[in-house]
């Protein structure tokens, strides 16, 4: 959709030729054809139809669109889709193993770490990546990491409790 429209653009200040490439999201290949200017977040949501990645500000502050690319938590609103071609992308839809929730998803439910749930996918992906990279992360450092995303409902206390509980559970399970 929008292909005809986009190809017809003659304004000169946007690149309108569509590029074809493949995004690998949660282990699955998605062949896409989008303009170079299309953000990764929009492409994951609209082309791959994975709408769990949310857009809260589109300028890289709120972190609702946080996903994991090749072991790094990134803001998908600040990347173009084409930049992620050939990389391993993980979104919130890939966290659970079938019906079995990830320990962090369980912890968010158990500790009432979400209310409206809009920021939740971003917090989950940020925290999952952190706990995978630094399973022994301390409380203070964890706060620094979590301070990179915004939540407007919970006041954060229960998010912190949930992440600490998941950290302790994941560490004990090792």
């Amino acid at each position, binding site marked *: *959709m*929008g292909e*005809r*429209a*986009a190809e*017809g*653009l003659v*304004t000169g200040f*946007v690149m309108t030729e569509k590029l074809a490439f493949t995004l690998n999201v949660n282990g699955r290949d998605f062949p896409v054809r989008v*303009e170079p*200017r*299309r953000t990764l977040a*929009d492409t994951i*949501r609209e082309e791959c139809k*994975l*709408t*769990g*990645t*949310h857009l*809260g*500000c*589109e*300028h890289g*502050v*709120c972190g*609702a669109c946080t996903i994991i690319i090749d072991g790094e938590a990134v803001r998908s609103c600040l990347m173009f889709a084409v930049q992620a071609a050939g990389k391993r992308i993980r*979104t*919130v*839809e890939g*966290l*659970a193993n079938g019906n079995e*929730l990830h320990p962090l*998803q369980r912890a*968010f*439910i*158990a500790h*009432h770490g*979400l*209310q*409206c*749930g*809009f*920021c*939740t996918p971003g917090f989950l992906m940020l925290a999952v990546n952190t706990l995978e990279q630094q399973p022994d992360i301390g409380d203070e450092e964890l*706060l*620094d990491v*979590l*301070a*990179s*995303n*915004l939540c*407007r*409902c*919970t*006041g*954060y*206390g*229960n*998010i*912190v409790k949930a992440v600490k509980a998941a950290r302790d559970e994941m560490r004990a399970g090792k």
Partner: protein
Amino acid sequence: MNETRAVKWIGQSVERLEDPPLVTGRGRFAGDINFPNQLHMRIVRSNHAHGRILSIDTDAARKLPGVVAVWTSADIPEVPPIDFREGPIEKLAPYRQPVLATGMVRYVGDPVAAVFAEDAYVAEDAADLVTMEIQELPPLLSAKDAPAEFSPGRHTEADILRQGYGDIDAAFQKAHTIVELQLSVGRHSGVPLETRGAIGRYDAARDMLQLHGAAKVPHRNQELIARMLKRKLTSVNVFESHVGGGFGIRGELYPEDILVCVAAMRLGRPVKWIEDRREHLIAANHSRNQHHKVRAAVAADGEILAIDDLIFHDQGAYVRTHATRVAMMTCGVLPGPYRVPLAYRAVCHFRLTNKTPAATYRAPGRFETSFVRERLVDAIAHKLKLDPIEVRKRNAVTVAEMPFKRPLEALGEEIHFDSGDYHKLLDRMLKEVEWEKLNADLARRRANGEMVGVGFAMFVEKAGLGPKDGVNILVDSTGAIEVVTGGASLGQGFETVMAQVAAEMLGVDYQRVSVIHGQTDRISHGIGAHASRATVMTASATRVAALNLREKALAAAAELLQAPVSALDIVNGEVVRTDRAGGPSISLGQVAAAHGKLEAEGWHHAEHQVYPYGNHLAVVKVDPGTGGVTVERYVIAYDIGRAINPTLVKGQIAGGCAQGLGGALLEEFTYNDNGDPLSVTFADYLLPTVREVPDIEIILTEDAPSPLNPLGIKGAGESGINGVGAAIASAIDNAIGIPGAVTQLPVTPQRLKAIIDAKR
């Protein structure tokens, strides 16, 4: 094998029914809703704060491939301005916002044109190509400035609101002392993490107009849209999906909602609009922004005899759906928990400015007045050299005086405090925080050169606005329960709470209950979720409906089991005999299947709102070098009457508190002298992060269940934010050792540093 006792669900902190889709990325927020063949709308907004529209050129935009239409107000002459929710108000009608600016632009962000295109990116490209010629006029940017012309013969002071009682002049003549303050609350707002969104869809075959992405007050918006577009109520339906936070601002009817509806009908295709964050910060309702000149007549012992408040309320560019509600509420609730026996007068100048229009934000009128009232009490205590806690105790309404009536109004009702023991809660809090020791510790730290202090605020909330709400409950043949409400969910846990109440009354597992809300095609009435009324009103109606259903189910089962109703109970979805163990039983699903239909309705009527109450306490540390404030500790004591789900109540309180800290310390919509908004990104409008919010300590009590509903429920939604501005201001005064230093919120580092430096 049958369990013999029904499970108690009310009062249990069970896990939320809402969570599984939300933690797995399967939520459906407005941005996730798509319909085949949809168009995307982009709004072209004014870049001028105030001016006359000389021309708008849409030619280049129209020519862009992929663009289907570009509208200005000339294209929709039949669409009236956005109406007031409570019906026409003649005096205020000229100040309503047109759906697209007509003749004038009145704030930066005012919608001037709408672009409809095949693709959201193309719609944005096209919007950039729309140009306009504006004859600039001087902007009016403060409600304290003299009113100016709004339109010929009409000025920007749209109304003057008044509430009061007693003889003010006589009371002030009797005063031992008069304390006078000038206080300001900054412009800030709810700023939910999800921006607004609206998707209009028209089914010509059935002549049915649908608005998706609705929130807060679905049935009222259905009514408003029908009224504005001259359609039958039954040919408009609005649908709420997942909602990414509301806080008062989302779910009001805005120009964009009307535009997607009109466009869906006229262009014959679904039309989707998703707001971007810059738009949100300049287009969605702002709030607060008041200036108070307040004085109190005080007796020698600190008793407040009378209060006289002159208020300037900055409404922004238009009067939106709430009309003067926030200003009127401000006038009515200022005295809070204090008696103020002789006289009270509030006069509020409700003035338009060339800024984003304003309306409600969580605890509207209460965040502001708690700040004003508690500043006043601190000032009284300082002037009379009394203990501020003692002054509060002296003035607070006592339990013996309950119910307490006050000849002032809130939301059109006379204020009747239904129940409460303010002194008991205050003592409980002081004991839990070890008040004496806390103060001694802080004094010691201050003596060691630290700028640390404690602040305190008392408040009364209001909740559960009536007059009535009704709920339908049905059981299907599988035994699943559906509770159909006209309520709304903004993320607060509405479904879980309703399910808990229904489950306990009915005798089923709460996880067997699904709760419908925000779907106007499922129920013909509903109050939505605002004014902390959902749990009080809708849960009370759910209780009645569930009890009615229980009665029907037992009667039907009695026939099937050949047993008297008195010998039956419902336990975990099974109708069982209580008079003999191991007797025959039948599931609710089987009863429903045998009966054909198992369904009941229930209503709750409320004559008056309920008045929960609480205290806030903050401990802060100030960095004298930067003026930065660290909140070391925050404690909230709150009497909820009865908590259906204590964990969810505490979640509401903690979340509200974090927002309050934002409004007290960080968040402010600022403008330059031209009326250009300066807070248009999250880098300028600062929301608190986890680093700015301590773990909120909550003392939740149930000392004063409301006598006005059978479950004793009061509301929870707004208690966490109510007293934050007040407590933080008081704590900062204490920390820097300058009583009364804080007169303006938010206390930004720049402002606080200026206060500290001025003293040096």
